[in-house]
């Protein structure tokens, strides 16, 4: 993900050590200066996200990364980035929680990532990779989307992806010099009127106008940027809805189920916001159940139920505390709904 960020044109990384994503920070410390960029190990996650705010305001592609407790600290900054319309990529390698929790893989930050987390009426594009090659692809995409829609974008991975090795073909790097100029950036008011980057509008009418405009961009994102994968859904009578590492496990379950004669398929949201409500709804009309599987107590489940609107059964299976669901346990749940 670190190399993908550099290839995605990131030239300013700020981070603070936290397991299980220290390799990312360490890679940046060794490689960012070679790419002509800036690396700082900040005094805190709070400082790191605010350094990102500064670099983003100055017009440079910037990123920070952390894991769950650290992301909680960054939420203030994420809200300010959203409020000031600043592009920034935030990687969350999710671990067990709440509190200090543990350092095992988990998906307990889905609500925090997709429903706000920080204060105020903002949205954030959230991308959920399931493999290392996809992590590379989505980190690079995150920089494009952040610039295009001018806001923070989160890559929501988990401790399993954070500690995994897989072969990957790295895409060609983006040359930051070829990116469209950011005419709004703070570069010094030479030969132009001063630029201001702020989230502060004392007058309610003024703030409302800014908020309404931003909400318009969010509607555009919902129309254009929904990404998901369907796997063996054509003839399926039961669907697993899962994202990230759990979606990988679901593929194993599908193989096992189909050898038992159960027509099982997978819908894997790739964008967790904007969420693929429409494709899920379409599936709901023709299957017996959509089983949501997560490494939490049922968070994405709420979006699945919103999409399905009681058109079919929507059971849930989850593991907590950093435990990873086993294919056998998931299959047992599937069998309860397969006719």
């Amino acid at each position: 993900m670190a190399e993908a960020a550099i290839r995605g044109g990131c030239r300013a990384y700020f981070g603070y050590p936290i397991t299980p994503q220290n390799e990312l920070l360490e890679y940046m410390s060794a490689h960012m200066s070679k790419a002509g960029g800036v690396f700082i190990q900040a005094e805190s996650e709070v400082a790191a996200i605010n350094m990102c705010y500064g670099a983003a305001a100055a017009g440079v592609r910037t990123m920070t990364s952390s894991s769950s407790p650290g992301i909680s600290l960054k939420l203030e900054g994420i809200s300010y980035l959203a409020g000031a319309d600043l592009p920034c990529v935030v990687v969350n390698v999710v671990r067990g929680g709440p509190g200090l929790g543990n350092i095992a893989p988990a998906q307990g930050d889905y609500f925090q990532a997709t429903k706000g987390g920080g204060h105020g009426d903002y949205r954030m594009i959230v991308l959920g990779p399931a493999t290392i090659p996809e992590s590379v692809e989505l980190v690079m995409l995150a920089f494009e989307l952040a610039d295009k829609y001018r806001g923070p974008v989160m890559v929501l991975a988990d401790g399993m992806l954070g500690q995994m090795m897989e072969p990957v073909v790295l895409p060609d790097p983006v040359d930051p010099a070829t990116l469209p100029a950011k005419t709004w950036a703070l570069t010094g008011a030479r030969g132009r009127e001063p630029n201001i980057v702020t989230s502060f509008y004392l007058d309610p009418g003024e703030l409302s106008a800014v908020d309404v405009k931003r909400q318009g961009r969010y509607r555009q994102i919902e129309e254009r940027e929904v990404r998901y994968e369907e796997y063996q859904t054509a003839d399926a009578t039961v669907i697993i809805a899962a994202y990230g590492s759990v979606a990988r496990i679901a593929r194993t379950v599908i193989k096992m189920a189909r050898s038992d004669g159960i027509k099982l398929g997978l819908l894997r949201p790739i964008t967790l916001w904007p969420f693929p409500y429409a494709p899920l709804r379409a599936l709901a009309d023709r299957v017996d159940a959509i089983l949501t599987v997560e490494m939490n107590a049922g968070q994405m489940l709420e979006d699945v139920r919103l999409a399905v609107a009681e058109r079919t059964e929507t059971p849930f299976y989850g593991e907590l505390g950093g435990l990873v669901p086993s294919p056998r346990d998931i299959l047992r749940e599937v069998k309860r709904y397969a006719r």
Partner: protein
Amino acid sequence: MPASTENMVKVFGRPESLNEVQFSYCPGCHHGVITRIIAQTIDDLGIRDRTVLIAPVGCSVSMYQWFRCDGTQAAHGRACAVATGIKRVNPNLIVFTYQGDGDLAAIGTAESIHAANRGENITVIFINNQIYGMTGGQMAPTTLLGQWATSCPAGRDSGLTGYPLRFAEMVAQLDAPVYVTRQSLYDQKRIMATSRAVMKAFRYQIEGKGYSLVEVLTNCPTNWKMSPVEANRRLAEVVIETFPLGDLVDRG
């Protein structure tokens, strides 16, 4: 009969770096004086078109609307981290933060100390008026012992809330800062000394020397419940006993 302005010569005007707008400060407050000093310094150094200011949370939150240079507004206490991000990705810019005692020395202590310790090549203007102004006069980390504030109605008690924090002294014991000074604005002599200090701090940044902190002891007539004259007298006679004036570090 009003006097004709026809034959009058303009001998004193608004610095080029300021817009034709009214500050939102209270009458008699020193914020306006130091804001003007900064603008005049930017004019004198010819750096308006490469200066970026970082406004704090507090009475100066909309400062970027007054200056004719690029500007942003940072979350409460985070100005030095934002300044770090801007300066590191574009070292040609002249970056300064303007922060009060609550912003710099309470909620932003970590960001402020670590930017100083890294020797970021930025200028920090620290307005120490010993009170939270914008929120209506609560106790600040710099509030004097015995001083009344809305959140210490019996006066600041060291047993409950500790002692006035001497931030300039804290920064001065670090190896990286090139210039750390405490100035004030209670009379003309002090205003001139503060102007020289601000000029030196910006000049060091232009020369690439590193981090500067100019702490400015200021009044807050509104929340001190004093007239501006009484407030200035208090600064000169009482406040400087706790916060001595002068240069603490000058490695330029």
